[in-house]
């Protein structure tokens, strides 16, 4: 392999892993509060289509991203009201949200399929970007990649070092105890759900405005589901979520590289590689752990305050 190929693989690895990283960080926060939202895929698609339509009609990428975040928040608000106010089953509600989001995004995006926009461009820093191997990976990405890294740092610090993060973990572990010592369980869970929605919306719009600047039905292609698995196999640790997201990116690129090199394996089979590789690595990492100490203990269980 020549240097250029390696440079490009590393660049594309980070780029491909970015939407996954963003949506998984949102889901991580959500699950830390004890809420399991399976609606990631639907929220991502809504973010993707809304972001695309807004950018196409206003010409502003910024507005597109903001609109996508808003769309994700609104979708998660539906989830929040149904699971928190009506105490509905989180799994069923999340599944319904994904089906709803998939259908609705296809419906409102019908007239936008195949329309071209100018997507978010990578930055170019003279000299640094042209460095061999790491130049494009570190200094030639688009702004959202750097934002995703900032988000990772923020989430990592929040969970491990901040007081609100401690409250978040406490609520996810034992909402009844949290309520008994006076922590606002409902508020914490709502905020976590909305953050998860915002991140899913942003991740969706990264697909339609930066990664492949166009709108296509079902364009998230299961990334929402992979993000859910990622959080579990990352043992609810932010640093492992980052690792898993980039692994997924690397495997996605490698399967294209292998095809390009003319491997005589069915391309469909090769396309499963990123999913298999990511899960395999994380399963190995998370084996031999005491699962009762890793998962938020109240995950998926509704909380009823007794008065």
């Amino acid at each position, binding site marked *: 392999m020549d240097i250029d190929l390696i440079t490009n693989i590393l660049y594309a690895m980070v780029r491909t892993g970015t939407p996954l990283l963003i949506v998984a960080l949102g889901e991580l926060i959500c699950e830390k509060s004890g809420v399991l939202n399976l609606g990631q895929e639907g929220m991502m698609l809504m973010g993707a289509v809304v972001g695309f339509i807004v950018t196409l009609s206003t010409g502003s990428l910024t507005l597109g991203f903001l609109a996508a975040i808003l769309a994700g928040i609104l979708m998660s608000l539906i989830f929040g009201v149904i699971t928190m106010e009506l105490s509905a089953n989180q799994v069923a509600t999340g599944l319904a949200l994904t089906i709803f989001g998939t259908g609705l995004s296809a419906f409102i995006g019908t007239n936008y399929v195949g329309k071209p926009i100018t997507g978010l461009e990578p930055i170019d820093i003279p000299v640094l970007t042209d460095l061999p191997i790491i130049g494009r990976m570190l200094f030639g990405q688009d702004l959202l990649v750097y934002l995703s890294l900032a988000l990772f740092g923020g989430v990592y610090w929040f969970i491990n070092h901040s007081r609100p993060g401690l409250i978040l973990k406490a609520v996810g572990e034992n909402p*009844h105890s949290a309520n008994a010592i006076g922590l606002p369980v409902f508020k914490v869970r709502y905020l976590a759900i909305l953050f998860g929605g915002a991140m899913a919306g942003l991740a969706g719009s990264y697909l339609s405005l930066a990664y492949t600047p166009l709108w296509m039905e079902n364009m998230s292609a299961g990334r929402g589901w992979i993000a859910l698995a990622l959080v579990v196999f990352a043992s609810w640790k932010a640093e492992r979520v980052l690792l898993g997201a980039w692994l997924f990116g690397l495997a996605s690129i490698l399967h294209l590289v292998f095809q390009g090199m003319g491997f005589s394996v069915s391309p469909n089979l090769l396309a499963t590689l990123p999913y298999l590789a990511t899960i395999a690595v994380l399963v190995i990492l998370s084996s031999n752990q005491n699962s009762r100490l890793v998962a938020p203990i109240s995950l998926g269980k509704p909380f009823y305050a007794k008065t």
Partner: protein
Amino acid sequence: MPQHPIPPRLTLRGITKQYPGCLANDDIHLNIAAAEIHALLGENGAGKSTLMKVIYGLVKPDRGEILWDGLPLDVKDPAHARKLGIGMVFQHFSLFDTLTVTENIALALGDDAGDIPALASRIRSVSEKYGMAINPDRQVHTLSVGERQRVEIVRCLVQDIKLLILDEPTSVLTPQEVDTLFVTLRQLASEGCSILFISHKLNEVKALCHRATVLRGGRVSGACIPAEEDTLSMARLMVGENTPVSTTYPKVLGTTPTLTVSNLNLHSHDAFGVHLKQLNLQVNAGEIVGIAGVAGNGQEELLAALSGETRASAGHIQFADTDIGPLTPDRRRALGLAFVPEERLGRGAVPEMSLTENALLTGFLTGLVKRGMVAWKKTEAFADQIIADYKVKTAGRHAQADSLSGGNLQKFIIGREIMQKPRLLIAAHPTWGVDIGAATAIHKALIELRDQGAAILVVSEDIDELFLISDRIGAICDGRLSPLKPTPESSIAELGRQMAGDFSDAATISPRPTTSRAGSLH
């Protein structure tokens, strides 16, 4: 100038709280002075829990008034209560297992917590001052039950505390740990802190508390100075005049071995489980063997191995002449073994099934099922007979199991097992959360079964109960069982040491007579 009397620290006036179908608190009046240790006595369902939740801001009363240092007060929520200096130690701990001691305490302190290292050193100094050694950096799931309680207490003490509420704090402690706790509480009171001590253990209230208020059926049924009362008169205030509360039972010697456990080693697959180590145990026909122990020391694992929920390899568990180690629970039941599990709802009975159906669940071996068909008439008669013989208060055999109170459901379950005339009955915590009247009825039923020649094994955390009904007694600690002794030869102190894992035969210490305790309430 006229001198104003100092108002009590806390005054409750006419507190009333109505739940659907239940008046939990009815016009309750209570005064607690500074530096006073005040007992709140009452049976399950007397309204103790509701009342303390009102004080702590978890429950809003429908009527009534709370005065704090003489001024009216509306406790908005637990955070507000803590700001006022009201701390609470819950019966079921409100700790977070995966967080450290310091993180747990930081959560409760709100914005006053400060940074973690500073708080950790504050925790260290407070815990040393009050004789409750605790390592702030440990994760809570690694702590014993007694240590967890210390965390709850220290959590209250790192703040400026004026009123400490303890809900049944001794139910999870060994007798020695209880003594240590009392030393701490007395020290705290001498510094001016008021303590509200909620309990139904009269000996402890007598030993610790300055005054007592007794609740019954949601109302104040009396107030007294515990030191001037005997336990019987306080018990009367708790249960009323018509319930028998005081009995002693003659101790007997068993005859032939019915259950023999020899060198049982069992590896627990639960991450928080306890491994059974070299366990030896013999229960004879016609005797009751009692096993004490702090929760989580292998009781669950032992009970599961005996009932058949987990199976042991051959050669370790013998029932009469049969090696039952590898047998499933139904095969063991067919041999004459009966089992009363700790959890009434979920294992002892199916909550949403009727009493008739629940009677069938373990009674099916006694002719209630013929050729695969349920004989409903017979089953209904069986359920009716349990309800009548064991005075189960219920709307009838069609009532759902979860509609019964804990005590009544327990009477039903015990009755169901005893009516099948078992040769061996294993009962886990038979009177846990049961009021005194029902507990007495359950004890009588067990003694009667014993006198008919059955072997009975009782595992309980209630030491008074074990001394009352057991003929031989011992304790389990960390998966090991102490040698069993005839009850009259043991003592509270010795059993306490065994519960803490010290199985040495302390012959040098003369055993305290247990008859006076047996004459008391439990």
